[in-house]
């Protein structure tokens, strides 16, 4: 049961990752690519860590997995913001 749950979570996480990177490759401009990327970061890794957490033997590993997800979540929000700001600044200059 746990195995099935975990598999489902990991596979759906993978789907978001792939959707994110295909979006990054196919979408026409920076801002829409930003949008695609946050999918991979937030949902892809979130589902993956959830799936792996079901396998974790001890609480400390689960804690680390949660921390990894939170760190990437915060980092992706912050860097998406910074990159968008930077791009806007560049546009204004030119």
């Amino acid at each position, binding site marked *: 049961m746990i*195995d099935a749950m*975990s*598999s489902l979570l*990991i*596979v759906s*996480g*993978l789907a978001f*990752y*792939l959707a*994110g*990177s*295909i979006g*990054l*490759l196919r979408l026409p401009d*920076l801002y829409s*690519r*930003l949008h695609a*990327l946050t999918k*991979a*970061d937030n949902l*892809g*890794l979130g589902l*993956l*860590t959830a799936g*792996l957490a079901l*396998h974790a033997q001890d609480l400390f*590993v689960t804690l*680390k*997995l949660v*921390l*990894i*997800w939170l*760190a*990437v979540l*915060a*980092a*992706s929000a*912050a*860097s998406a913001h*910074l*990159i968008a*700001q*930077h*791009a806007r*600044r*560049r546009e204004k200059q030119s």
Partner: protein
Amino acid sequence: MSELLTVSALGLMLSLFLGLLRVVRGPSTGDRMLATQLIGTAGVGLLLLLSLLLKQTALIDVALILALLAAVAAAAFTGQQRETGDD
């Protein structure tokens, strides 16, 4: 279960590979930074899967460090200098 993890690891590697195409192609530096971000996230996921597949629990710590430093690149790239600040 192991097969699923293996297939997922290959999937993530593919995702990393697609990000790599964007890093090499650009066109703007912002695009390249974004793609580097994706490579980082895919790398984190890949390391987590490898930690189970290769039975190397320490790779979770490597993933943790990568995750914690994921924002450093973007901040170093966009950070504006004091005094001059003419970017």
